[in-house]
């Protein structure tokens, strides 16, 4: 199973900044290994964010998002103690979901 994400969510007034680091190779499918064989593409395709269980953001990514991806976005109306859930699915169908509390 994939390694856990690192999620930080910080409220300032009515705006909450969410920063996420995901552990993923984000292999483009354009690179070759030492033997000259193409390394197959392997990348996160879908990212979802939930605030207290309700989906607030969906995103689709291509293989050009950098390895061990970083994502930052701002939520309106979240407050300290709220739960932020982040999920991703990659092109092989691997999934990962993690949660953090707004501070």
């Amino acid at each position: 199973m994939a390694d856990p994400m690192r999620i930080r969510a910080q409220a300032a007034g009515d705006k909450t900044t969410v920063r996420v680091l995901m552990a993923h190779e984000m292999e483009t499918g354009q690179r070759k290994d030492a033997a000259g064989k193409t390394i197959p593409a392997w990348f996160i395709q879908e990212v979802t964010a939930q605030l207290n269980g309700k989906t607030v953001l969906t995103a689709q990514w291509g293989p050009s998002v950098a390895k061990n991806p970083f994502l930052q976005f701002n939520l309106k109306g979240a407050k300290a103690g709220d739960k932020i859930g982040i999920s991703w699915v990659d092109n092989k169908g691997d999934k990962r979901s993690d949660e953090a509390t707004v501070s």
Partner: protein
Amino acid sequence: MQTRREMLSRSAQVAGMLAALGMFPGMATAQTAPYNTAAFDAKTMAELMKSLGAGAPVESKDVTITGPDIAENGAVVPVGASTALPGVKRMLLLVEKNPAMLSALFDVGDAVEANFSTRVKMGQSSNVFAVAMMNDGKVLYAAKEVKVTLGGCGG
């Protein structure tokens, strides 16, 4: 004492259980559109817009693209797309000279600002674009050139 990882994996298990129980309404109702392969294969702006069912984009001062003037390494280039305009449906981040232009697509809901930052790979110096697709069908963009320098010793 719990380690960070235990805490994280426990919350992951909880999240997984919730998902299994259909308690993540978002996941249960699967608002996410199916992965748009055509958009992520598009080589030109025209192809990309067609695959997204949108018209030609217009440059706008109301859209902001953030990124460095020079990237020390093309493997990780911090970029951001934002707009303060109301009525945004989607935000896109594009790299003009990558094998496929589209890097990331964000669906903007009521609870989230149209302001996203991530990091992309760039094969060479290129324009990067922030595109805002509006509810009324307008497509607005901003562009910025990012120079990618060579690595340290070339070895």
